[in-house]
């Protein structure tokens, strides 16, 4: 159980893993996430389900090495197992059957979060366009995979090393200014990016969904750590989300909450690197 059956280095520091977990694979739906714990002393971290194969019992996750947990995970190999793998958690993505045209916007690690949704909508014959953005060319991945499922794929990089130089929101603005309209826009990525997208789409009144990734412990509605303000209500991202109406999300509050443990996480990662001889 929880055995790593597939491991691929997609771009520097970003890994794709297939985890053998028939029970999660059987129930998984686009939009849901898992909570995993790598070692017995490890923390529980949420990760989006990038894709799943119910027949083979495999759940795919994609992660970037940003701290101790992801660092340890990246050193495991095919045949190794991780301590715990729980899911699928959160509410699945629900689409409005009347919607026909979609624009997906993914920044960096948001790419895996759109993949299974895009695939599902494509199979239903919907019209899909995608904007993918990253810091640099090496941060853009899954381009070929996504291209199969959409009519247009736009790429932006901050440094201009690939696609259009600038931000995903530059492309979004151009598309909308040129008269493009969509029934639904779905944005996943850094909180600042999702906030910027919503600021634009609000003006056009286009329904916009976002998928949030706040700090979580249990992921089953027990601890309340992932609470976010949606409209005037406090919601728990783990049981009410992670997908919410972007117009209602308090992004500033979310950003502050997500930064709370940053210093301790850096400390833990630094110690880990020293221990394994990577130093600074």
């Amino acid at each position, binding site marked *: 159980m929880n055995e790593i059956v597939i491991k691929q280095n997609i771009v520097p520091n970003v890994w794709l893993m297939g985890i053998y977990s028939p*029970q*999660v694979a059987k*129930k998984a739906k686009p939009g849901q996430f898992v909570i995993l*714990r790598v070692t017995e*002393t*490890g*923390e*529980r971290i949420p990760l989006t389900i990038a894709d799943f194969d119910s027949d083979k019992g495999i759940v795919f996750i994609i992660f970037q090495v940003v701290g*101790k*947990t992801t660092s340890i995970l990246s050193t495991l190999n095919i045949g190794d197992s991780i*301590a*715990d*793998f*729980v*899911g*699928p*958690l959160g509410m699945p993505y629900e689409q409005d059957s009347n919607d026909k045209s979609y624009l997906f916007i993914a920044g960096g690690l948001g790419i895996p979060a759109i993949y299974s949704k895009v695939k599902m909508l494509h199979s239903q014959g919907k019209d899909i366009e995608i904007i993918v953005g990253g810091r640099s060319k090496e941060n853009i991945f899954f381009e070929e995979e996504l291209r199969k499922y959409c009519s247009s794929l736009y790429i932006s990089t901050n440094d201009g090393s690939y696609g259009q130089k600038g931000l995903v929101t530059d492309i979004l603005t151009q598309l909308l200014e040129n008269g493009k309209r969509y029934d639904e826009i779905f944005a996943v990525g850094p909180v600042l990016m999702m906030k910027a997208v919503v600021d634009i789409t609000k003006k056009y009144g286009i329904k916009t969904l976002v998928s949030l990734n706040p700090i979580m*412990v*249990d992921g*089953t*509605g*027990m*601890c*309340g*750590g992932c*609470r*976010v*303000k949606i409209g005037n209500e*406090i919601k*728990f991202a783990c*049981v009410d989300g992670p997908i919410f109406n972007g117009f209602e999300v*308090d992004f500033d*509050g979310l950003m*502050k*909450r997500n*930064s*709370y*443990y940053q210093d*301790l*996480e850096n*400390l*833990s990662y630094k*110690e880990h690197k020293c221990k394994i001889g990577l130093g600074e």
Partner: protein
Amino acid sequence: MEVLKRVSIKEQEPEKRVNNFDEVCLGYSSDEAVQEALRCLECKNAPCIKGCPVEVKIPEFIRLIKEKKFKESYLKILETNLLPAICGRVCPQETQCEKNCVRGIKGEPIAIGKLERFVADWFRQNCEFEFEKPESNGKKVAIIGSGPAGLSCASSLAKLGYEVVIFEAFHKLGGVLYYGIPEFRLPKEVVEWEIENLKKMGVEFRTNMVFGKTFDLEDLKQEGFEAVFISSGAGLPNFLNIEGELLNGIYSANEFLTRVNLMKAYKFPEYDTPIKLGKKVGVIGGGNVAMDAARVARRLGSEVYILYRRTEAEMPARKEEIDHAKEEGIKILELVSPVRFMGDETGHVRALELVKMQLSQPDSSGRRSVKPIDGSNFIFEADNFIVAIGQSPNPLVKKAIPELELNPNGSIKVNENLMTNVEGVFAGGDIVTGAATVILAMGMGKKAAENIDKYIMCS
């Protein structure tokens, strides 16, 4: 021997224990236990038993202590109570068995809880748990949640020959006994030992299984389970719904205790889960969970204040917990109610505005209500706040069984046999009663087992 007074029990000194997570109460020695047992009058009508939700045969087990037959004493308790080492530690005996103790009329009641704990610990240290597994009756029962209600139901069913599987959402077993009650009140070693015994009884445990997500009722039916017992616990933490509650530094008691107890954040960075606690901490609430949170915060090095709407006399927490908290230097601010949290520019909480409250005359139920005193608002500064004002039922169960009938407060509705409106689905523990005690949950687990047995055997 002063027959009206209890044999006093050794505890870790407060100054010492605030620096560790080791158990506070050190328990009786054999001699002390025998001495305390000798105070028992062995009343024929045994009013103490009537106070116990699982009807432990109290005078009988105490008589065996008098005779120094500690193993037999343990087995006597085990006839009706699966978890003596746990109940001896966390039951509110003062409002149950000990409240009815005849010795208590003139003097101090027999320390029934401490004696129960003594024999359980003695057995754990000196004996091997043996269980002759009855022949399987081939019937399968699924239990959702490995907390006290689930464990007690599993034990009763296993004794009857059922094949029992407990599904647990977390990676550790024990539910609230593991993530909620801190090590210094209930060592995890004790919980783990009890669970090992259940495994010896043939109970199967499956971790990381979230009901309504990883599996549902249909899956259980397909796997051949003939009945289901839902004991998934209290669930979503309540918040105050006041301004500023999203600020960093404000924890629900659930999150705070889960980080420390389950994820061992107090051992960070040896363990990866972090916790942040500043110099001064305010804990909002007056129940056992508030006491646990306050005492954990104290052990993490903070100066701790409990902020409570009524007075200490009205606190729902056990007196022993309140006394222990006070001994450890925790201060109680009575008759205050939160108005709004205030934070700094980084989004971290810095203070809580409180309003002073006054008690009214007792109402018909005898409970005194409180109302705010106009214009009495003041600012209470602290680095962190922990909100411990109860929980609401977890919504996942309802999502797993949409036709399940709930009470207006969201808890599961059951009939006198603890069966829900869904055929073959029973429920008990906090998901039915709202946050209550370990022993009450265990009592329901046991009752559910009897009814599940009747249900399966009659259908």
